[in-house]
């Protein structure tokens, strides 16, 4: 017998002994599962995106419990000592109750990335200064017209040949503890604490470190952050209802420094002169520390005829006052006042003083005044107010971010930059519904009405209204039908030239659904489901001639030139069957077809005339198939399970352009010649295919002992025309990591032994 088995047996024997030593009035026991697993080597991080697949011996599950008069505990452990381990349970002793949950979530986002930079400290990506000097000299010596892709590709070839490996992954470790103090009190009191620690890499990031070259550099963004959440909940229940109050204090601490990326084409800080110059390295800010306090209170009153009145109030305050980073890392840039822009002294204030308050209040009423009739009404308000300490920005290095920019406030941007505006939002909604039962049929009608208010956005006000009809029919145990039709509308009022942005624009939103469930025979169930959501963005303005972003006086709208998102649709169809021919066999299968589609339009003008009219119609068609079978070879003892899932997503970007537009002007390279019609579609548009097939046999060998063996096959494929190249620099000058999170094919086999005691 191998050592690992002996150890496992030893563990199991120890547990059995512990059980035998428990007090007579106590029930205790548990379970432990030991597994041995074999699998192939997979290069893609997709295989282990949110899990660990350990080869060799592991403990996928352990449980220990004891229920006695004075002490009561229950502990569950999953994937013990693995990166995806989890432990949860409860303990009651001394009149107190504790529940806890420790959950570790790995996130593998790409293996084997190739970086031209070296990460000399977390988030600091560097290149040797000698290399940067030689690249800078080479670029400065080349005329602008000669700085082609071929030029950069040749220049950087040695650098691309000696890259550093980067595995982009992170892990999240969350601990939750709740202490119930009210076990023997006439009211509930619970204290809770949550700690959330994330480390590793957040994912791919990076940006533009500009000098003579206008590039984008991709690196892995550092992740080192901690969140503390402390909460208190108290509630009291009485015969005719209950009341509650909660308070949470949440603190977010970002322990990672900013992202710093060396400029490969600039060895030293320099001001920009004649197109040359820039920072030797630049800084990208990360998330600042922030805090939030939230308090809620609510009540529920119960009356006769299932009448309920409930209300709640929630107040929260989010603050952020972290020290700013300087405007730039470039020591050669001066502000208008002659102060070095890389110095903190150049800042008009050292921190933001950010503060956002939210208020929510809600009142609900429901009743069943007569048998079969339900009525309900609700009024809800959500108000977000920006109380931050704003100041007027008169200069920065926002764009282009290698020079000092003078900023002039305008009526639309009173603080200098539009994104620095005060963004308040308030929404209110009233909903009323009535439901009536007519024997096996239930009918519901609902109406709703609401308002939207915003500051500093194009759509400053809006109204929402809607109605819904639902019918439910249940004929005994063999037929159930559910149908829903919902029509919602939103208006938008404000100021816009090209049309309100999609999230604030007027729309009509139709949702339709039908579900049919049939049980034609004992053990046979069929279901069919259809759902559609269709959002039409109405009232999109036609294009007009503009000058400097302002409509030219007297310019007439150009017909049939709406702009922006015009429609977003989603359809899903599902057929499902489950069949149990005997008590020992359960079979099931389903197929779901989905299609989501969006329609974006844009038109350009040449003077007062239409030039290009473009349509970007993106869609994804998805087919998902699932099947499973459970076979009780010997009831409650030996079970064979098979499972299969396959999902295929076909993405498409259907692009259409006006043939008479400027893109068809002869002489421009890469254009579709006049007469060929339309622009080229992109058919590989995040296409994915995932297949999983598994089989498992569980054999109960003797009392408490179960031997299991299983096999799982997985195949994943991904295609995207825009990112199919393995070149680190598929266009100039955009340098990527190209980590592997793509296609893989792999199989896993395991055997495990469980002992329940």
């Amino acid at each position, binding site marked *: 017998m191998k050592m690992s088995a002996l150890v496992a047996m030893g563990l199991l024997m120890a547990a059995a002994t512990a059980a035998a030593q428990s007090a007579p009035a106590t029930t205790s026991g548990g379970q432990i599962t030991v597994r041995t697993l074999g699998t192939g080597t997979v290069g893609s991080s997709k295989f282990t*995106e949110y899990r660990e697949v350990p080869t060799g011996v592991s403990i996928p599950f352990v449980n220990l419990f004891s229920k006695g*008069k004075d002490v009561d505990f229950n502990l*569950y452990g999953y994937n013990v000592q693995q990166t995806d381990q989890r432990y*949860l349970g409860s303990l*009651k002793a001394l009149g107190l109750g504790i*529940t806890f949950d420790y959950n570790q979530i790995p996130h593998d986002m790409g293996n084997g990335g190739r970086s031209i930079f070296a990460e000399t400290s977390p988030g600091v990506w560097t290149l040797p200064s000698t290399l940067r000097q030689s690249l800078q000299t080479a670029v400065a010596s080349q005329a602008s017209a000669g700085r082609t892709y071929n030029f950069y590709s040749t220049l950087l070839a040695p650098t691309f040949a000696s890259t550093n490996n980067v595995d982009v992954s992170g892990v999240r470790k969350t601990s*939750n503890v*709740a202490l*119930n103090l*009210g076990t023997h009190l006439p009211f*509930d009191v*619970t204290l809770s604490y949550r700690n959330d620690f994330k480390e590793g890499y957040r994912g791919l*990031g990076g940006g533009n470190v500009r000098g003579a070259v206008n590039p*984008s550099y*991709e690196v892995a963004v550092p992740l080192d952050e901690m969140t503390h959440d402390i909460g208190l909940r108290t509630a009291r*229940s009485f015969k005719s209802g*209950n009341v509650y109050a909660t308070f949470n204090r*949440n603190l977010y601490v970002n322990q990672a420094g900013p992202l710093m990326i060396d400029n490969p084409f600039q060895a030293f800080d320099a001001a920009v002169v004649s197109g040359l110059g820039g920072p030797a390295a630049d800084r*990208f*800010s*990360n998330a600042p520390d922030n805090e939030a306090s939230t308090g809620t209170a*609510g009540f*529920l009153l119960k009356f006769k005829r299932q009448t*309920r009145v*409930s209300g709640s109030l929630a107040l929260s305050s989010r603050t952020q006052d972290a020290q700013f980073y300087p405007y730039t890392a470039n020591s050669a840039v001066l502000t208008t006042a002659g102060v070095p822009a890389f110095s903190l002294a150049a800042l008009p204030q050292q921190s*933001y003083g950010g*503060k956002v308050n939210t208020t929510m209040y809600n009142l609900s009423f*429901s009743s069943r005044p007569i048998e079969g009739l*339900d009525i*309900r009404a609700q009024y*809800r308000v959500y108000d*977000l107010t920006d109380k931050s300490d704003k100041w007027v920005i008169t200069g920065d290095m*926002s764009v282009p971010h290698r020079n000092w920019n003078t900023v002039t406030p305008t009526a639309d941007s009173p603080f200098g*930059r539009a*994104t620095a505006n005060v*963004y308040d939002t308030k929404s209110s909604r009233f909903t009323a519904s009535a439901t009536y039962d007519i024997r096996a049929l239930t009918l*519901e009608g609902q109406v709703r009405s609401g308002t939207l208010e915003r500051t500093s956005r194009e759509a400053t006000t809006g109204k929402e209204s809607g109605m819904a009809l639902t019918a*439910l029919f249940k004929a005994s145990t063999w037929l159930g039908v559910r149908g829903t039709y919902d029509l919602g509308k939103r208006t938008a009022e404000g100021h816009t030239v090209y*049309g309100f*942005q999609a999230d604030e624009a007027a729309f009509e939103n139709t949702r339709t659904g039908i579900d049919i469930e049939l049980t034609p025979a004992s053990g046979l169930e069929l279901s069919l489901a259809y759902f559609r959501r269709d959002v039409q963005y109405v009232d999109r303005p036609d294009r007009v001639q503009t000058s400097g972003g302002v409509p030219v006086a007297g310019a007439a709208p150009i017909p049939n030139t709406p702009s922006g*998102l015009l429609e977003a649709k989603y359809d899903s169809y599902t057929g*499902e069957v489950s069949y149990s021919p005997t008590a020992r066999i359960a079979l099931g299968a*389903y197929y779901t077809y989905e299609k989501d589609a*969006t329609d*974006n339009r844009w038109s350009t003008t040449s003077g007062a005339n239409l030039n290009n009219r473009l349509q970007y119609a*993106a869609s994804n068609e998805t087919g*998902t198939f699932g099947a499973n079978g459970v076979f009780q070879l010997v009831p409650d003892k030996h079970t064979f399970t098979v499972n299969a899932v396959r*999902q295929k997503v076909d993405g498409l970007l259907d*692009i259409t*352009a006006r043939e008479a537009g*400027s*893109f068809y002007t002869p002489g421009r*390279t890469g*254009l*579709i010649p006049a007469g060929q019609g339309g622009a*080229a579609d992109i058919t590989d548009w*995040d296409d*994915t295919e995932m297949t999983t097939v598994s089989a498992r046999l569980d054999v109960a060998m003797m009392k408490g002992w179960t031997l299991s063996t299983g096999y799982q096959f997985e195949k994943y494929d991904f295609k995207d025309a825009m*990112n199919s190249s393995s*070149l680190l620099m598929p266009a100039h000058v955009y340098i990527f990591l190209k980590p592997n999170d793509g296609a893989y094919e792999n199989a896993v086999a395991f055997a495990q032994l469980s002992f329940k005691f």
Partner: protein
Amino acid sequence: MTFPLVRGSGVLPVRPMSWLVGGMLVAAVAFAPAVASGQVAKSQTSAWSAADCQDCHDKAVSPAYAKSAHAKTDQSCASCHKNVAEHLKAQQDGKEGPVPTLKNMKANDLSQTCLSCHEKANQATFVGSKHARRNVSCTSCHSIHSPKSLTGQLKTKTDAETCFSCHKAERAKSLRTSHHPVREGKMGCVSCHNPHEGTRPKMIKAESVSELCYQCHTEKRGPFLFEHAPVREDCVACHDVHGSNHPRMVTQKQPTLCWSCHLSGSGHFGSGDNYSTEKGVPAAPAGAPKGYPTVNSRFIGRACTKCHLNIHGSNSPSGAFFVR
């Protein structure tokens, strides 16, 4: 009849707000036997116990039920099943009598049975909720006698399996390549939703979608010096939280996602620089070397966020356009 202060069953959430509630509830489920046993000791009488029913209904008094708080209630089976004494007598006399099953009850009546104890905390607003109005009763999801889940006494091992039995579109979306770790068992539907919720939109466990997301993605909370307004209002303006085939669970692949709003104005949207992308994959010129770029920079890599990396908001004094 005296009912103990059973605080109901609940799942084991990870979010702080619901953790407070859920933790209390889970604690009650785990600890109720001690509470109940204390009360039984107080009353010294128990008019009904599971043993009275077990002789005929042994499967209903399963090990899982016996360990649960329901088995320890003062009146045991009679707490929920009415007329059990009359049913027993009729059976013993060989006569036809009342059948105390809950299976034939209307959804609302069945739920009222459970709510007589559990109408508080997570379940406080179930009456009038969308699930209740759709005739989804407590036993549509929960099993009192044969639960399969670790917490919450669900009919399935995980909450997602229960929810997917009706929410089939979300089942398909959860299988997308870019997804929350639900199918890996690291999260569940109840990490974000309270299926009993009757007042909050979409039954989420926060007062707004953004506040819900901030519970895990706290780095996005800000407030930031420079705000991306749609982000502040609603995360689902850009993200499909149930799953997407596009990276970072966005609803549309970039740059078309950004073009939903940003197809006008200055900068590289108005200069014509952006428009060349409509050509898709243009052909390389004759004689071009292998690897000649045939993809436009606006599409490749992370598209717009190649440069506008702090798209959720920037606290850099030079971050007005989210490039810093």
